C-alpha cells in the first residue's frame, strides 16, 4: 500500500492506495503513531484508492480511531469506494467513523470546527 501524506494548517491528510489488510494496516498505524509524536491528532484518511479492505484493515482503523480519541483528536475518512462503503455498513462501523463523500468536505469540516 502507498501512503501519501499532506499537512495542512488544521489537519494532516493521508491518501491510501492499494490493499488495507493485516500487513498494511500495521504499517498505517505506525505512520499515524509518528504523527502523534509531532502532536498531530487531527487526521484525515482519503480511502479513494483503497482497492481492497478486510477485517484486519478495519481493525487497524478502529485501533487508530481509539488512539486518536484518547488524545482528544479527530479522525475522518472520505472517498470510500462503494465496495468499501458496503463493508463499513455491514460491520456497522459506519456508525462510529466520521465519513465524508469527498476529501474537500472532510477538510472543510475541520475548518468549521476551528472557526466555531
Amino acid at each position, binding site marked *: 500500500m502507498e501512503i501519501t501524506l499532506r499537512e495542512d494548517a488544521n489537519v494532516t491528510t493521508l491518501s491510501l492506495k492499494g490493499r488495507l489488510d493485516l500487513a498494511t494496516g500495521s504499517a498505517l498505524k505506525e505512520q499515524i503513531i509518528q504523527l502523534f509524536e509531532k502532536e498531530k491528532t487531527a487526521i484525515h484518511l482519503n480511502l479513494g484508492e483503497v482497492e481492497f479492505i478486510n477485517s484486519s484493515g478495519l481493525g487497524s482503523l478502529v485501533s487508530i480511531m481509539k488512539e486518536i480519541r484518547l488524545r482528544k483528536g479527530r479522525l475522518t475518512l472520505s472517498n470510500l469506494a462503494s*465496495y468499501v462503503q458496503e*463493508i463499513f455498513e455491514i460491520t456497522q462501523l459506519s456508525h462510529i467513523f466520521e465519513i465524508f463523500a469527498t476529501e474537500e468536505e472532510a477538510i472543510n469540516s475541520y475548518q468549521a470546527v476551528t472557526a466555531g
Partner: protein
Amino acid sequence: MPKYEFTYLSAVASEDKMLDELATVLHINGIPEDLQNWFMLAISEAFTNALVHGNKLNPHKAIKLALNINEGLLTADITDEGQGGLAKIKRRQPPTLLSEGGRGVDLMRHYASVVRFTETEGGALKVSLRFDQIKENEVERYT
C-alpha cells in the same frame, strides 16, 4: 472445471502473495468484478484466521488454499496446521463496535452462500467457502 492449489508459508507477507495469485486466477477465468471482490474478501478472512490464530505465524506451518471455479459456482478450502481451531470458532463472541478484531467470520458468512468449518484428522481447521454466482437465496450456514 479449473482447479488450483496453493501452499503458503505462515508469514504476514503471504497474504499479499495469496491475494495477488487469487486475483490473477479470478481474472483469467472471467469472474465478474463484484464477485471477485467478495470471494477475495472471504478467502482473506479465512487465510488471516489460519495465519494468526491457527498457525500462530509459525513459519514452519503452512496454509493450503484449494480453489474450484465452475460456471455458476466458486468454492475455496483454506486449511491451516493448527490445533483446536474449530472449538475456538464455536466459542467466539460477536465483536462490539469498538473491537479491533473478530469481524472476519461475520464477513465470510455475509458474503458466501455457504461457510463450513470442519476439523481435519490432525485437528487442524478447514474453512470451506461456496459462492453461488447465479442465485443467492437459500443461504446455508454451518458452524
